[in-house]
């Protein structure tokens, strides 16, 4: 018998601008010991399904149709009191952010024991034993001691293990995991997924795992359901869906997933989402403003050269210098970026890769070491006016498309700001022409100029950021995780755009990412960072086929295995 049975689920969000149907007639089943993945891009309605099952839909959302059965028992029309009893006891939950799903003011013991006592009606002593046992099962060392700790005393990965223990502690029949590893690094993600898989098998628990990440799907699930704009478009075994998809949306989604085993010339055109974002009108670079004025001073050797760079952050402020505590976010790092190449930096969170980008861009002053732009040491440039010469040649694209644009300015003014500041055009009319040209060149319509940033989607905003970066006619572009906040199909479009621009304009790029497959698609050479140190620098192909440093080998081995993904329609450059 099915453990969890969702029939014809329909969820609506009424608002004053009309009712949004978030989930349209979805059927799903989960069997004991099985992991069902629900995959889709943002706005597909996948999280809403999970929330509806546990009866925690965000208002004003409401279930307008369908039924949910737990072991044959209808649970969707229970009173909120009865639903509360099911949550935790019969349906366990794991959410994305391990920081907010634990109470910071209670020890792990209090939280676990309370839940066990409440749901299993065991005595205090038995509950404590069980709590310790659970922590051991999820792989926490010295559980007898660690159980007395507060959530903040655990690292992100350990905290997510505690959340899993908490979800398991009342022996639920079903676990709903909503993006359980999205906030975690790859190495920890692999461990957590393996743990979840093992617990599912051993305890014959059914799991519904909701994610946007094909890697997670490939790693852990038995069956996959693909969601697109509230509809369930395809469902089947993981092998079948990823290896031989039928629905055109699934096909385009899978072709957009970056893989570590092949390097593509371009991603196939993903035209299923946001169709109007193709670059319809391309400028003739040789005659346009953007292509002119590119006769930068000749530079022999590398364009950017970083020497013994150290960046120190103060972790504990104190009046006296000797009482201050600090750590080196970047610890004597040296590398060169040749002219016209794309240099990648890869590393886990906290490895100092973004700090390096900001040091090169001049947002931070290094504690010691130097950044050479050609012959000039940027850390020694005295006046703002002298620095402007280099700023013009060096621009940056940021990670978060929602905070990288000033929401109070029109797109026209955002993109025009660098042109006006550096006086790169003679008249206001010329500035406006250039801005609309740039917007078209990055794949936005001319009308985009008169709008405000909030009227655009994440991918479109990232295009605006790129247009702004191009507006100084730079020769060097820093991309700090430019696609990690975007859906895969949008990511594919943005990566294509960056590749095209790099070729057209002969840009030199520093490309920072935590995502090895993306690095493989984009970069000529790669540096691997760990805890502020550069452990290896190599040609991309060499790094992926023959990694030298043990840390690099570890990172590569932890990548989700995506070999059996469909290769349909790919334009392979190297594999």
């Amino acid at each position, binding site marked *: 018998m099915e453990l969890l049975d969702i029939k014809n689920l329909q969820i609506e969000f009424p608002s004053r601008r009309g009712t949004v149907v978030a989930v349209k007639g979805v059927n799903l089943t989960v069997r004991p010991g099985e992991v069902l993945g629900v995959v889709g891009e943002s706005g597909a309605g996948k999280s809403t399904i999970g929330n509806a099952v546990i009866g925690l839909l965000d208002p004003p959302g409401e279930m307008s149709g369908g039924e949910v059965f737990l072991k044959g028992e209808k649970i969707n029309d229970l009173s909120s009191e009865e639903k509360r009893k099911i949550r935790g006891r019969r349906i366990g939950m794991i959410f994305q952010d391990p920081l907010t799903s634990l109470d910071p003011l209670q020890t792990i013991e209090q939280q676990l024991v309370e839940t066990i006592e409440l749901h299993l009606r065991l005595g205090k002593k038995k509950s404590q034993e069980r709590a310790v046992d659970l922590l051991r099962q999820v792989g926490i060392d010295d559980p007898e001691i660690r159980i007395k700790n507060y959530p903040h005393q655990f690292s992100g990965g350990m905290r997510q293990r505690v959340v899993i223990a908490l979800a398991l502690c009342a022996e639920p029949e079903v676990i709903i995991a909503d993006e359980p590893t999205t906030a975690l690094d790859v190495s920890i993600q692999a461990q957590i997924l393996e743990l979840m898989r093992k617990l599912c098998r051993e305890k014959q628990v059914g799991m519904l795992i909701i994610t946007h990440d094909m890697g997670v799907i490939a790693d852990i699930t038995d069956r996959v359901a693909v969601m697109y704009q509230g509809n369930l478009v395809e469902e089947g075994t993981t092998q079948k869906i990823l290896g031989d998809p039928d629905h055109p949306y699934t096909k385009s989604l899978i072709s957009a997933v970056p893989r570590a085993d092949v390097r593509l010339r371009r991603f196939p055109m993903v035209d299923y989402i946001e169709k109007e974002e193709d670059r319809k009108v391309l400028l003739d670079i040789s005659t346009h403003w953007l292509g002119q004025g590119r006769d930068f001073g000749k530079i022999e050797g590398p364009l950017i050269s970083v020497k013994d760079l150290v960046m120190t952050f103060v972790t504990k402020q104190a009046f006296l210098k000797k009482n201050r505590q600090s750590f080196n976010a970047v610890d004597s790092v040296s590398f060169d970026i040749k002219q016209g190449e794309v240099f990648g930096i890869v590393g886990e969170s906290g490895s100092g890769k973004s700090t390096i980008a900001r040091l090169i861009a001049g*947002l931070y002053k290094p504690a010691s070491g130097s950044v050479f732009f050609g012959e000039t040491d940027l850390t020694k440039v005295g006046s703002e006016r002298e620095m402007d010469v280099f700023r013009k040649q060096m*621009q940056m694209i940021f990670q978060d498309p929602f905070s990288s644009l*000033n929401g109070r300015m029109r797109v026209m003014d955002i993109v025009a700001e660098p042109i006006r500041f550096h006086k790169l055009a003679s008249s206001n009319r010329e500035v406006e022409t250039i801005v609309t040209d740039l917007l078209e060149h990055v794949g936005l319509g001319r009308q985009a100029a008169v709008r405000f940033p909030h009227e655009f989607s994440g991918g479109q905003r990232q295009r605006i950021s790129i247009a702004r970066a191009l507006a100084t006619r730079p020769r060097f572009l820093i991309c700090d995780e430019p696609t990690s906040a975007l859906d895969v199909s949008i990511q594919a479009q943005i990566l294509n755009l960056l590749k095209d621009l790099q070729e057209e304009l002969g840009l030199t790029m520093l490309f920072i990412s935590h995502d090895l497959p993306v690095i493989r698609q984009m970069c000529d050479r790669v540096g691997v960072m760990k805890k502020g140190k550069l452990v290896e620098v190599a040609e991309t192909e060499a790094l992926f086929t023959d990694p030298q440093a043990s840390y690099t080998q570890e990172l590569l081995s932890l990548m989700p295995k995506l070999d059996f993904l469909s290769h349909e329609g790919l334009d392979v450059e190297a594999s």
Partner: protein
Amino acid sequence: MENTVEKSRMARILDSDIWHSFARSPVAIISSIVTLVIIFGALFAPFIAPNDPFDLVAIDLMDASLPPAWLEEGDSRFFLGTDDQGRGILSTIMYGARISLFVGFASVIFSMIVGISLGLISGYVGGRTDAIIMRIADIQLSFPAILIALLLDGVARGLVPKEMHNDVTIYVLVFAIGISGWVQYARTVRGSTLVEKNKEYVQAARIIGIRPGTILRRHILPNVMGPVMVIATIHLAIAIITEATLSFLGVGVPPTTPSLGTLIRIGNEYLFSGEWWITIFPGAALVILVLAVNLLGDWLRDALNPKLR
């Protein structure tokens, strides 16, 4: 996306969430109507007031201390009665509200300019500058605002030659009330600036090379104005009250150009001789004005911060 025409400014306002929230809040609509009526009455007092309380020719001592028109002995010319010198209460209230509102708005604007600038600098520059500005703010906060206003008022009076007193007192008042209120703005703006300056759009501007002054003005300032507008509305009510208090205490505007506070003080002396209308009506006008502005401020705070609901 292709065929949407650019919306006009008015259409955008009518479609915005804030307008929607306004249209559905009876409290907001009523209090803004009341506020607008009072402002209108004050602004156009010279044209619509039934009589001119400052025209010595028109004032007749025979009309002194008349009760409101609906009472016995009332005079239809003076709807709310007259004071001891024969000035119509309704007209004096309208003229008095002019002074009150002027002092209120002017001192709020003054506070805003001082507070926002110091808050922006404090938050953006940080370090020692921040520490100094914020410690000054802390010290000032440990005194009641009215005390600071009284103190500044006294000092300013000492510095200005006596014969100029009547001309400048109103500006002294604006200055005193303005200075006593800047801390609120500075603290709020500093907090928001600390958040905004680490956002990527500010970093993008820095990479372009935009200088700090321009970044503060063009990028950060528009993004910190939301909470400032809420404080400003509530502060307007406080400023009007402070002005009334100072005038009531006799250190505010001179009796020749009475504000609401002055009117209440003058009437206060006649309260126990049975001529209650001289003080009650200006007092009621003050209460209604302040209440309406406060309710408007409350609504604005809720509308801009949906999480509070």
